[in-house]
């Protein structure tokens, strides 16, 4: 599913990023950055759903090669967070849904979690 479709499902605003063509294979919904680092399979693009808006969220995405982050409950990130995202070509979205609601909506549309994602044969 591409980011444009996800943006639609989450009724999200685009904060940073120009292309929403990117294909997302799985979702990581997490407020614990160490968990993000340990469970993301970087070979396949994932989207990070999180409540954390500080620059380390983007840094974590960069290290784990996560191409897009969506912030919950309409939170808007700090300038430093946005700068870092621009520099690393990471898309930032913001939705008014909570982490639970956003996860549920995407799961219902068939997007798996990063622990259960299997490459289609």
């Amino acid at each position, binding site marked *: 599913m591409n980011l444009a479709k996800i943006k639609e499902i989450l009724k999200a605003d685009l904060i940073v990023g120009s292309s929403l063509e990117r294909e997302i294979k799985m979702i990581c919904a997490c*407020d*614990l*950055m*160490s*968990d993000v*680092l*340990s*469970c993301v*399979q*970087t*070979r396949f693009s994932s989207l990070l759903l*999180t409540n*954390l808006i*500080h*620059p*380390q*969220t983007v*840094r*974590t995405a*960069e*290290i*784990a*090669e996560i191409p897009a982050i969506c912030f919950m409950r309409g939170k808007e990130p700090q300038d*430093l967070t946005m700068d870092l995202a621009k520099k690393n070509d990471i898309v930032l979205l913001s939705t008014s849904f909570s982490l639970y609601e956003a996860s549920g909506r995407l799961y219902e549309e068939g997007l798996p979690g990063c*622990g259960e994602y299997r490459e289609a044969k």
Partner: protein
Amino acid sequence: MTPYVKAPKIRELGYELKVRDAMDRNLITVQPETPMSKVRGVLRSNRISGIPVIDKNKLVGVVCVEDLVNWLRAGADNCSVEEKMSKNVVTLYTDEPLIHAINKLEQYGFFHFPVLERSNGELVGTITREGIIRGLLKKLEIDYREEEIRHYRASHVFEDMIADKTSLIFQYYVAGQDFNRAGESASALKKTLKRLGTHPEIVRRAAIAVYEAEMNLVIFARSGEIIVKVDPNQIRIEVEDSGPGIPDIEKAMQPGYSTAPNWVRELGFGAGMGLNNIKKCVDEMNVTSTVGKGTRVEMYVATKKESVSYEVKGTG
């Protein structure tokens, strides 16, 4: 066939890419017996200018906007698609070079062509100008990325240097307590390893391990240093700080055990998974620490091709 595309790079890509790389696989079709009155709705709701007509999996014609207009002008009498469709359909095969599609679009002035599978003649997709442009841009982007990597790739230093053993050493200085800059070293090392042509999976593991170690350093110490030694077979990473030290390393290694202050936890770190995460990413890890003096984490990642594994060693 006259070459319509003059830009040499696009021509080259046009030969390299096949029709299947740029075609739209979303098939919208009608049957010969579909009434003409339904055509308008199908064209409109799918925003297309022509629809392939299918009879028992075989393409028998195409009904397009022009056919619809002609039918309307002639009085829009009750009839089927079969009577009004164009039967001489120009098609393409999936394995033809994309340049054929570009040339045919120019030659016929059409907006789309049905694409057939050569082996069985079945309709598998359509090719449009939009699809061609998207296919070319995608390919250009991939080529550009690869070129960029080639340009930066410094992996040949290992072959160019004449020595019994060649190693590269990278040093990063880390300021403690500065959370906004935490991770800069890991980020820099990641880019450096990529330029060296290190396998992406190795880069990922090394970057995550260094990031976690760097975080620990920033949380607990005032300052520290990361020294990375890269040789053709392995990467050795040493993260050393002059922090408070770890009284019980065994305990610190337990998943979930943490002494991190609350402000760190609020930022999504300090949940006691750091050292555990590092262990999962590297092939070997040694932690030494003296209370009051500092901590030293030493990690090894093997870079030989056969040791590369994509498997995730369990999830955190």
